[in-house]
């Protein structure tokens, strides 16, 4: 342990509650309320990581989510490990274990540090330039590049935590609970708006809440005391919901925002079980108030990245909020008044400030005076030109700036220190505003981008709107809110504000050095090790667009998304290129604002809730009878029913044979079913199907083919005429929803004059198909009252019936080519009817079969499956289904496309059958079909779409599509495989019972 740097008890830290944690294997102590960063600083630890490219030692630099350096891996080698956690955000808890990233073997001795000395040969774009040639070497380079790429290690075990999503709808969302946000939330809620206030920190009040200076007063109270009272009041307001530890990740159009609410990350591990770790809030707010504050800018000079160099405001927060001194000999370097607040605070706590270096020449304010009165040396018109100290800053060297700020003059002065605070002024946090599509404008006087135009109902207030001082905030915020919320009066008007802050600032993007730029390392992006030198190189090499420079130099592409350095990058580019900042634009800020875990994004959509499943009414029976299942769309369908350790092939062969020899039974409940009613129902069917429907008699069924307007096959199925104006249409399982959508589209938009109503009844019915030569005998036992004679109940007809007292519909239709019946009954009776069919069919060896056998049986008959034997390029003519296309009908969907120049070509891909030379050889579905293997390049004629071994024909059969295939019956073709060629003969696609004898057997 090093010396304790706790300087003063703070009310935000509970010193009675001691917490132990480990960092890089060593145990340290902190208090409840500490972040990992504040607890480490209290123990004198600054060096926490190594930079990405040069492996330079890096220390804690900020006290917030903008931290580029202090990113750690938590709980390495456990299921809860997480990389890239900002030490400045994670609150310590008993048992916390954190380790540095991007260093080996340790943060104190890192082999990769050699890159720092190699840096002259590692310029911007090094990887792009070096590993491009020769192209064939890429695979070798890749191995080494991958090894050194990336920050941190991703977890390899399943995440033990639970994540949740929640939708929130509110009238007003206030992002940020600093002084502006608190005023906004209170104003909105008091005026009856349902309000949500969120802040990424664990406490409310932003940076004002730990202000303790006589220089900033509201109504004659110190600003923090005034704000504390306001916070206590808003906690009591009923229509105001407050969420802390919640950060907005994304601000989309239409005021839709995503925020991560952190619920357990601050708790000891043993208190987290079965609790939701993080919740993704999906917020819809009528109005959004951005009160996201501002980020302090660093200053860009040679070696501005050493451990011990922090933002001046961070040093202020560590001392005021956490009661921690970042150093014992502090130097501050600034271009504005902010650093003087820090100097005064440190001085009051007895922390030594050696000097303040101010690049402004002629400047005076109450704050500066007070610093000078405390015998702290102020160097006006000076700049830091270099720093020294490898793992911790030891010394700064400063020189006088020329009047134009572009050069340095005079001689060097050295000042010893162990901590350097830098302040380059403030940048409004406009990230969320721009994510939502908002446009920025550039304010010349202090060189900041502030919100301008937005496309949703939102407003930016306080320092994210460019009002940085207390008096500016308190005079502008109430006015803006009154207008935005359309209210008459605000409690916050006419406050008496006292602020000593002087707004003057001297902005120099890249501070001059006594060395040539090539010899310096002024870091702009700390995390990705991009320096001002790299940006200038990119411009010399011809890059002009800010987006290109960003990608070439990787500036702003780390996990911190360039929160600190982006403005400087822009400034350096505009200065070097001689363009104006306002015209250059900015890079695009993309979500998430701070990194999100995958768990939060995914929420509960994992494991069994990863995807939706649908089950048929007979599902449980299939499970009880050992079925294997296949996913068809969202449905779980019985695939096959293995018996006595059968494999899939054996089961399917047995089921297929049984269905043709005796009886088979299939659960067809997944087929889409649409109830069609209305006086124009027949006319409607005429228009949507290729064949004619007007003459279909009541009680009869017909197969229909539906096309898209482009003439390609879209769906198929059997439709039954139940009554004069009443039909029931079946669709494919996968097409059910889209077919209904398409039909509604035509009814509502093209043919609103038709009197037709469509209602989905897919889930209302269980559909049980019993097929095979014995099917009639079985159905006659299941429904004894039904006349099954061919005369009364022929193929392609239907009857209303009852099983016990339950009404049902029975269709005599077939997808297997066998004599078969389809029972449609209300779903809740489906399982019972299925069981009765099994019981009644026992003596005929009724065999349940799944989708695989169904596919085999229909392939024997050459029946197509839409989506398997067709894609969106097959017309009915291509499928050799000319018979189903009505020549008489004037119009139907897709008719005109059937004689476009392309669709009437002779050599289109057409559906054919394929027989292998060796009857035992089964083709692979998807295999390519060629005629001449020696031609170069080999011409692909088509591919295999369906392929099975048929136990009924005792040979291999296949369907395929082949260019000009219709006229190739009998021709020999070749299927080239990886290690062989298979000879096939083109055949008629109907392999079995072409005369349809079995249908009436």
């Amino acid at each position: 342990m090093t010396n304790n740097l706790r300087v003063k008890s703070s009310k935000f830290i509970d010193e009675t509650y001691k917490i132990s944690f480990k960092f890089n294997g060593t145990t340290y102590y902190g208090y409840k309320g500490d972040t990992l960063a504040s607890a480490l600083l209290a123990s004198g630890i600054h060096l926490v990581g190594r930079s990405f490219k040069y492996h330079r030692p890096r220390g804690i630099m900020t006290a917030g989510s903008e931290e580029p350096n202090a990113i750690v891996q938590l709980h390495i080698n456990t299921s809860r490990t997480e990389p890239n956690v900002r030490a400045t955000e994670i609150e310590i808890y008993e048992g916390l274990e954190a380790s540095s990233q991007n260093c080996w073997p340790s943060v104190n001795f890192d082999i990769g540090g050699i890159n720092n000395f190699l840096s002259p040969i590692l310029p911007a774009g090094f990887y792009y330039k070096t590993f491009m040639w020769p192209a064939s070497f890429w695979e070798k380079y890749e191995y080494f590049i991958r090894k050194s790429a990336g920050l941190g290690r991703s977890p390899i075990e399943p995440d033990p935590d639970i994540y949740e999503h929640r939708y929130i709808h509110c009238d007003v969302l206030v992002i940020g609970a600093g002084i502006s946000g608190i005023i906004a939330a209170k104003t909105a809620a008091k005026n009856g708006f349902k309000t949500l206030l969120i802040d990424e920190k664990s406490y409310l009040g932003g940076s004002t809440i730990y202000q303790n200076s006589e220089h900033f007063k509201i109504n004659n109270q110190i600003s923090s005391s005034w704000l504390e009272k306001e916070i206590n009041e808003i906690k009591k307001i009923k229509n105001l919901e407050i969420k802390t530890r919640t950060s907005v990740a994304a601000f989309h159009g239409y005021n839709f925002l995503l925020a991560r609410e952190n619920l357990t990350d601050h708790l000891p591990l043993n208190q987290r079980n079965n609790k939701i770790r993080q919740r993704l809030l999906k917020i819809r707010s009528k109005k959004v108030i951005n009160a996201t504050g501002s980020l302090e800018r660093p200053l860009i000079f040679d070696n501005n990245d050493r451990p011990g160099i922090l933002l001046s405001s961070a040093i202020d927060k560590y001392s005021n909020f956490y009661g921690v001194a970042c150093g014992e000999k502090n130097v501050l370097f600034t271009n504005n008044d902010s650093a003087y607040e820090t100097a005064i605070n440190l001085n009051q706590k007895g922390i030594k400030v050696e000097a303040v270096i101010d690049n402004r020449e002629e400047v005076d304010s109450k704050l500066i005076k007070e610093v000078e009165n405390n015998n702290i040396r102020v160097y006006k018109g000076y700049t830091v030109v270099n720093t020294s100290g490898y793992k911790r800053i030891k010394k700064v060297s400063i020189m006088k700036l020329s009047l134009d700020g572009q050069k340095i003059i005079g001689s060097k002065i050295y000042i010893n220190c162990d901590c350097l605070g830098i302040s380059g002024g403030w940048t409004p946090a406009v990230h969320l505003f721009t994510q939502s599509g908002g446009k920025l404008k550039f304010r010349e006087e202090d060189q900041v981008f502030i919100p301008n135009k937005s496309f949703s109902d939102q407003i930016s207030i306080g320092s994210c709107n460019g009002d940085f001082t207390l008096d500016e905030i308190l005079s502008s915020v109430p006015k803006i809110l009154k207008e935005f919320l359309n209210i008459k009066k605000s409690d916050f008007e006419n406050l008496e504000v006292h602020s000593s802050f002087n707004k003057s600032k001297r902005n120099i993007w890249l501070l001059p050095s006594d060395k040539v730029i090539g010899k310096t390392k002024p870091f702009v992006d700390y995390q990705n090790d991009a320096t001002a030198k790299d940006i200038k190189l990119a411009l010399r090499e011809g890059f002009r667009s800010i987006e290109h420079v960003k990608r070439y130099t990787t500036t702003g592409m780390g996990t911190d998304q360039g929160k600190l350095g982006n403005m400087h990058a822009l400034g350096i580019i505009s200065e070097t290129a001689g363009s104006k900042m306002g015209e250059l634009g900015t890079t695009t800020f993309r979500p998430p604002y701070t990194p999100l875990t995958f768990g939060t994004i995914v929420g509960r959509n994992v494991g069994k809730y990863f995807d939706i499943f649908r089950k048929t009414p007979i599902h449980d029976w299939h499970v009880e009878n050992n079925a294997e299942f296949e996913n068809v769309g969202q449905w779980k369908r019985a695939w096959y029913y293995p018996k006595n350790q059968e494999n899939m092939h054996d089961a399917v062969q047995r089921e297929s044979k049984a269905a043709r020899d005796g009886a088979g039974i299939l659960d067809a409940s997944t087929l889409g079913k649409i109830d069609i009613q209305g006086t124009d129902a027949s006319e409607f069917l005429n228009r949507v199907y290729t064949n004619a429907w007007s003459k279909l008699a009541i009680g009869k069924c017909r197969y229909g083919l539906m096309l898209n307007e482009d003439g390609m096959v879209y769906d198929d199925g059997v439709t039954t005429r139940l009554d004069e104006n009443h039909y029931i249409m079946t669709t494919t399982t996968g097409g059910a929803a889209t077919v209904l959508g398409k039909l509604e589209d035509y009814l509502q938009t093209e043919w609103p004059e038709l009197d037709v109503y469509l209602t989905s009844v897919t889930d209302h019915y269980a559909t049980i198909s019993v097929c095979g030569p014995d099917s009639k005998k079985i159905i006659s036992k299941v429904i004894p009252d039904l006349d099954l004679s061919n005369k009364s109940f022929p193929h392609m007809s239907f009857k209303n019936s009852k099983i016990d007292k339950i009404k049902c519909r029975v269709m005599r239709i077939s997808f297997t080519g066998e004599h078969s019946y389809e029972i449609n009954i209300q779903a809740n009776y489906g399982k019972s009817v299925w069981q009765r069919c099994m019981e009644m069919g026992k003596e005929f060896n009724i065999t349940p079969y799944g989708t695989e056998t169904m596919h085999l049986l229909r392939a024997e008959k050459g029946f197509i499956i839409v989506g398997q034997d067709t894609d969106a390029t097959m017309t009915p003519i291509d499928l050799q289904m000319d018979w189903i296309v009505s020549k008489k009908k004037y119009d139907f969907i897709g008719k005109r496309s059937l004689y476009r120049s392309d669709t009437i070509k002779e050599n289109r891909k057409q559906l054919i059958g394929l027989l292998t030379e060796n009857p035992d050889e089964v083709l692979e579905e998807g295999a390519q079909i060629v005629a001449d293997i020696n031609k170069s390049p080999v011409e692909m004629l088509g591919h295999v779409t369906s392929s099975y071994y048929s136990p009924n024909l005792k040979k291999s059969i296949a369907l395929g599509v082949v260019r000009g295939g219709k006229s190739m019956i009998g021709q020999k073709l070749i299927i080239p495989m990886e290690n062989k060629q298979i000879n096939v003969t083109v055949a008629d696609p109907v392999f079995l019972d072409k005369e349809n004898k079995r249908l009436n057997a």
Partner: protein
Amino acid sequence: MFLIDCPYCGEREQSEFKAGGEAHIVRPKQPTELSDDEWAEYLFMRKNIKGIQFERWIHIHGCRKWFNVARDTSNDVIKVVYKMGEKPPTI
């Protein structure tokens, strides 16, 4: 994600809707009378505007009704929502 003001059900989240492409493309009454080029114009040719675009949307997870939307494709702001069969508004 947009909020879309369904002309029948009121304002709902985009996830309840499905987009259906450009609006006001009327299916020719007599397709057989058209040349290949004329039919192709109806079938394939679509505008892709930066600015106000008239589109069809269906409230697929709600009332299942189609309607038209005038949306500015440059910022996704929906200017007007109107029913099928109504004329496109002038914007």
